[in-house]
Each structure stands twice: as structure tokens, then as C-alpha cells.
């Protein structure tokens, strides 16, 4: 009987590997814990990289500067980072879809100028003005998407062209002047309505309105990317365009919708910034496109598409905000701040490459 069982077990296990059986010894238990521990570290490194970096930054600055760790300072940071965060959410979608949008700063300015001109020169109702601004952003994005897909030109080129076109249109619209301003006083029908200013500078129960808008858009963006077929399509197109096509996913539709959302978000950011600055002008948000791309990179999204997420980019935007704020408090000159940001982007990407190599393959 016993012999028979023995025979069976040698048949089941192959002779070489049926070394002393796998009884749970102390060593193997420890190994198990170690592997469980490394699994946790892996998860943190895989998903939580940006959040860990942000926490370290906060802890460091809290000790290094007396004024950093104050509620008012944090509220200030969220207000400052909101614009970049909103743009970074759209930019993330574009980049995951293996595109890049260099026109976001210019589209922001065009949408903001449109709203400001509409309410202060044309005397339109505030809601109509805002809708006009958002519509301008979405339409610009839509056109970019059509140019890329129907004209079959690279995203980089199309959005570069859109960048200068949108700036030009904004300059034409505002005649190169801030809206409203002292120079344009003669034409003024009125100043910006209080509601518009509230969107950028107001708060609800002490929380800045721009921060609330950012939170809402983050949730929406996260929902789109993880819970909808559109999000899945964006990942698929960015991961392998040909395979997505063969799986029945329309490249054209996905691309156009992504850029339209990006344009719409640039419009939202434009209106919030107008509210905060109390005015719009054609040259506002200069370099915002690169800021938003930096936030996306810091947030861990792969610049070649197919991988990444919205939440990381929002954290990336906040890391940039905290850094700027902290360096100000540390009395680091604005010139050096740019250098430091550059170094941080490089180290983030180097770290990102390292963890990909080390922890997955």
C-alpha cells in the first residue's frame, strides 16, 4: 500500500525535483515574508512613485522652512497648481494615446481671451461668455484632431502649428492688449463679472474654487481612463495602433475625441486663470504646454504612449507646485528654480527606467 503510494507520487512529481518536500520551515517562511515584502515595495514603486516623492518633498520642506507647513500655504499651493493640473489631465490622455499637444498654452490663452472679450467688449452674459470660451477650446482641439487624423501628419507638427495659430488668433481678438485693462477702458462695457473672478480666486468653506474644479476634473478624467470604453480605446491606440485598428477600435474617432477633451480642458484652465489674474491676454500661460508635459512625465506616464494615468499627472503638477513654493520660501532665485526643475525631470525619468528594469523584467 505504502509502496504503491510512493510509486504514485514519483509519477506525479518528476524524479529530479521531488527533493525533500516543501514543508513550511522557518527559512521558507522567512523567504515568503521577504517575497511578500518585496511585492509590497514593488507595488509602491510601480504605482506610488510620485506620491512617495511628494511626501518626501513635503516632509523635507516642513523641516527646512518655517512657513511651509501652514494651511494657508497649502491652499496657496493648490490654487497655484490647479491650472497646471487641469492641463496635465488632458495632456495625460493625449500622451497615453501616443500623441503630444504643444498647443495647450496657446489654446488656453485663446479661450480665455474669447471669454473675456465676450463679457467685457461684447457685453454678453457671463454664462454665455464662459461657454463661448470652453467651446473655443473644444473646437480648437477638435480641429487639431481632424488635422492629425485626416491630414495624416504627426501630432507634434499639427499641434506646433496650432500653437502659433491660436496665439495669433488670440492676439487678433484682443488687439494685443490685456482684457479688460486701462488701455481698453474706452471700449469697456464693464469689468469682468464677479462670478468669473470667483472661479479663479474664490473659495468655498476655505477651499479654493480652482482646487475643487481640479478635484472634479481629476475624478472625471480617472473615470474616463479606467471605466469607459473611450479610455480603453485611448490606451489601445497608444499601445499599438495597428492592433487597436484590427480589434475594431477607430483611430480617427479616438484621436479626435482625445484632442477635443484636451482643448476643452485648456478652455477650463483659461477661464480659471482669467479669474485668478482678473484679466485675460493673448500671451498668458506662456510655456504652459511644457509645464503640463513635465507634470505628466513626473507622474509616471510613458511618453511613448500606452501606459500611465491621470492621477499621477495631477500629483506631478502638485510636486511642481510644492517645489516652486518651497524653493521660494528657501529664497532660491527663480532662475535656479528652472535649473532644479530640469534636474528633477531627468532624475524622475532615470528612476522610472530603473524601476521598470529592476522590478518587472
Amino acid at each position, binding site marked *: 500500500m505504502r509502496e504503491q503510494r510512493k510509486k504514485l507520487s514519483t509519477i506525479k512529481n518528476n524524479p*529530479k525535483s521531488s527533493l525533500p518536500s516543501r514543508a513550511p520551515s522557518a527559512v521558507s517562511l522567512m523567504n515568503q515574508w521577504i517575497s511578500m515584502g518585496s511585492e509590497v515595495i514593488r507595488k509602491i514603486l510601480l504605482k506610488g512613485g510620485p506620491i512617495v516623492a511628494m511626501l518626501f518633498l513635503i516632509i523635507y520642506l516642513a523641516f527646512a522652512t518655517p512657513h511651509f507647513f501652514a494651511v494657508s500655504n497649502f491652499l496657496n499651493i493648490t490654487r497655484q497648481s490647479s491650472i497646471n493640473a487641469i492641463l496635465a489631465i488632458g495632456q495625460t490622455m493625449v500622451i497615453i494615446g501616443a500623441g503630444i499637444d504643444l498647443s495647450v498654452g496657446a489654446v488656453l490663452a485663446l479661450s480665455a481671451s474669447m471669454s473675456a472679450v465676450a463679457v467685457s467688449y461684447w457685453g454678453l452674459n457671463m454664462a454665455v461668455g464662459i461657454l463661448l470660451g470652453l467651446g473655443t477650446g473644444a473646437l480648437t482641439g477638435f480641429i487639431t484632431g481632424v488635422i492629425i487624423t485626416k491630414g495624416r501628419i504627426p501630432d507634434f507638427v499639427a499641434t506646433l502649428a496650432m500653437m502659433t495659430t491660436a496665439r495669433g488668433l488670440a492676439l487678433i481678438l484682443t488687439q494685443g492688449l490685456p482684457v479688460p485693462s486701462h488701455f481698453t477702458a474706452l471700449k469697456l462695457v464693464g469689468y469682468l463679472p464677479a462670478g468669473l473672478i470667483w472661479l479663479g480666486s474664490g473659495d468655498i468653506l476655505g477651499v479654493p474654487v480652482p482646487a475643487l474644479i481640479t478635484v472634479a476634473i481629476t475624478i472625471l478624467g480617472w473615470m474616463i481612463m479606467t471605466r*469607459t*470604453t473611450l479610455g480603453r480605446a485611448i490606451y489601445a491606440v497608444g499601445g499599438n495602433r495597428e492592433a*487597436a485598428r*484590427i480589434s475594431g477600435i477607430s483611430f480617427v474617432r479616438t484621436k479626435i475625441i482625445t484632442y477635443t477633451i484636451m482643448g476643452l480642458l485648456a478652455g477650463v484652465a483659461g477661464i480659471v486663470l482669467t479669474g485668478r489674474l482678473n484679466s485675460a491676454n493673448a500671451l498668458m500661460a506662456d510655456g504652459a504646454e511644457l509645464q503640463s508635459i513635465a507634470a505628466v512625465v513626473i507622474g509616471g506616464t510613458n511618453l511613448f504612449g500606452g501606459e500611465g494615468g491621470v492621477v499621477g499627472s495631477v500629483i506631478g503638477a502638485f510636486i511642481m507646485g510644492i517645489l516652486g513654493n518651497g524653493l521660494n520660501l528657501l529664497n532660491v532665485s527663480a532662475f535656479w528654480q528652472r535649473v532644479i526643475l530640469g534636474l528633477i525631470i531627468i532624475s524622475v525619468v532615470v528612476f522610472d527606467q530603473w524601476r521598470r528594469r529592476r522590478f518587472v523584467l
Partner: protein
Amino acid sequence: MPREPLLRLEAIDKSFPGVHALDHVDFDLYKGETHVLLGENGAGKSTLVKILSGSLPKDSGRIILRGKQVKITSPYHARSLGIGMVYQELSLIPSLSVAENIFLGRLPRRRFFFVDWPGIYKKAQQILKRLNLNIDSTVPVRHLGLAEQQLVEIAKVLSLNEQILLFDEPTSALSEEERQQLFKLVNELRERGFSIIYISHHLSEVPLVGQRVTVLRDGKKIATLPVNEADEDTIIQMMVGRELKEQFPKEETSPGKPILKVQGLEIKGALNHVDFTLHEGEIVGIFGLLGAGCTTLVRALFGLEKIDSGKIYINGRRVTISSPEKAIRLGLGYLTRDRKDGLIHPMSVVSNITLASLKGISQLGLLKHRKERRVGEKYVNELRIHPPDLTRKLMYLSGGNQQKVALSKWLCSGSKILIFDEPTRGIDVGTKAEIFQLFNQLTKEGVGILMISSELPEILAMADRIFAMRRGTVTAEYRRGETTQEKLLKSVS
């Protein structure tokens, strides 16, 4: 002959997160022999040769080369030790010429930095000639077919004068003729004193090329035995770990009404007046050598090639198929020949499986994650996708397991007409049988399957009807059991 092996691996161990890919594997290789590595998908064959070729670090174990322990740190280092690898996934740069690819990274130079162009074209041509390849070394690689690319890949490694050659499924993209050519080449090389490690899924290849066989299963070495003791049944049992009842479990079905009918399909320079009909519950096999137009034909059906003339009917209704999107809407599904064209590498396994059936797992554009997971689990279990981790990114799966994911995508899409171009490419024997079982289930539900395959036993056993194609023309039609390997080969060449 108790002599010292050229290469000895001792207790090689390698883990990936969640997978023990190699579990203390021993292996050796003598001078002038071909040692065949066999195993199911994910058994650790590719991992082992990747460690040898320096593209993966081992966790522990020793590598002893020519009596001395070595540490292989990079592919470059492996080459300098005389170990060359022919990759499973092609590693050529499409925009560069054949010659440039062959000499990539070590272009012969003249004085200063100037590349010796006439020299490299001449040398490349000599290497190609040695392989009996009729390829112009100045042509960019992207103008070559898949099989030619594979052969250039071999040429690339051969130019290095290595003593140890690693082949990772070199024949999976080749036609029968090219395969024979490759075997001849491998044997020639061995006679010249090369030592070869050869990974394969085709058991029939083993006696043609190898002297010894090692079988791996779940990262463990099961046995090493000389070829004359390694008959197919023994090997299969070792690979699968259980007895396999039938390799081709074809069940008889009675085909229903026609669902796909093609009349006079024509594409200039590729297809010549092709007619055929596919019925409900029927498997139609298409067999032809590379370049015969089989792939072009199915690509045209799926809206990927422009049709010059001809009519396509689905369920008796005339249709024009202008894009894959439209094809899918009409109930078609298409598994591409090159699996890279059909899969999204940075996406998870489950997202890849459901990619062509997003409508089924969503409502108003909102995904139902729980339903999606259920679908994913079903196929991961049925096709034994390894490791069984739905959220793992596809790129971290072995080649055969990726193929299973690609198949699952279409199996769950609910398509009524499934087109499979080499469905079992890179898939091991055990899983093949399970895939064919799924084919049976589908045909019972009334699905029609159009299958291109270069595996003669597979197409002869599974297809109800077989069309033979040559130069864009259907040259013969056979019912199941009406033809033999020889007859079929004759009608395509």
C-alpha cells in the same frame, strides 16, 4: 564518450515576480552537437537561453564555459564569449539594409570613421550565399517578407563566428520549404563544429536536427535523453505531465447554411479570381506556401486590403468591407499571422482579451469591470494562460502565452466568422488540443472558421474542407480525409 562538455549550466535559478521561471536547472552542451530544448509555453525555455545570451541576469547558479566559470553580463559580452542568439521576435531594424543589419554594431571601418560600404555589401552577400539565400544585401529589411527576415536574422548571427548558437523557435514563421532549408543549414553548421541549442515546439523537427533532447516543465528540468529514445509520445507526456489523449480532437459537425461567400475576388498582383464558401459550423482550411496569397485573401476579407473586383456575401447579403471596424460589425474576427499586430503590449492580459468585445462588457460606454474579469478568467483557465494573472501586462508573458491571449480575444468576441492565420503558432502540444476543443465548441454553436495553417497534420485533421492556393489562385479543393500531405504539398508547389 565521457569528455568535458563545452558548456555546462549548474542549478540555474530565476524568478520573476509571481513566477519561478527556472528552478535549479542543469544543462550541458557538447562540441558539435545540437541539443533541443522542449517544453510547454512558459516552461522556461526562452528564459534559459536569454540568460545564456546575456539579455537576462540569473538569480543563482553557475555557467561553466570551456571548463571555466563565466559571468555573462550582456548580449555583447555573450558574443565575445562566442555565444550567438537568433531571436524569436525579430530584432532587425526595418529601415536599414540587409547588410547593415547583418553587421549592425560592428560595421567594418576603413581609416578614420569611414564605413567600408563596398566591403560590407560584398561580405554580406557572401554570408547570404553561404545560406543559399537569394536576397540582395542592399535592400532595406522592411521590403522583405517575414520568413526572409528570419533568415537574415540567422545570417546576422552567423557572421559573428560564434561557436555556440542559440535558436529560439526559428521555424515558427517559415514555410515548409524554408524550414527544410534551415534544417540543412543547422546540420551543416553542426558538422562544421558549431554547438547548437535549439528551442522548438515542433516535435517532428527533433529527430531532424537534434542529437539530445532536454524537456522542461514549469521551470524544472524533467529529463535529458538521446534523440533515439525520445519518441513523440514519451516527449509529449514529459512536457504535459499527463497523458494526452488526442492531438487533434476533431468532432464531426453537419455544416449549415452558407455564412460567407466569396465570388471572383481579385487583387492585382496578389489574388486571382478566388471563389469559396464557408458554412455555419464548418472549418475551412487554406493551405499555401508563403506568398501564395492566403494572408492577402483573409486581410482583404477583413477590410485591410483594397479589393479590385469581386463580391462578398455574408448571410446571403452582399457587403463591402472597407475597414476592420466594419468587418467586426458584420461578425468577422481576425487573428493576425504576426501576433505583434494583434496585441497591445503595455496593456493587461484581461484588457487584451476583451479588446474586440468592449460592447459586450460595457453599457453606454461604461465598462463593467466585474463582467470583464469573469470573461478574462474563463479564457485564462480554459487555455491555461500562464501565469494566471489577469492584470499582468501582456509584454511580460512568454510568446506562446501571448498567442493564447490573441486567440482568446477572438474566441470571446462573439464573432460568427472567425479567420485564424496560423492559430497555433508558438503554442505547445497540450494547449493546441485544448484550442481545437474550443474550435469544436464554436462550430457546434454555428460559427464558421477559416483557418490558414502551414502545419500539415493540423490542417488535414481539423479542416472539413481544404483549399490549396498557389500564386493567388485556388488550385484544388479537398474534403476532409480526401487528401494526404504529399498530395496537398504537390497542389501548392
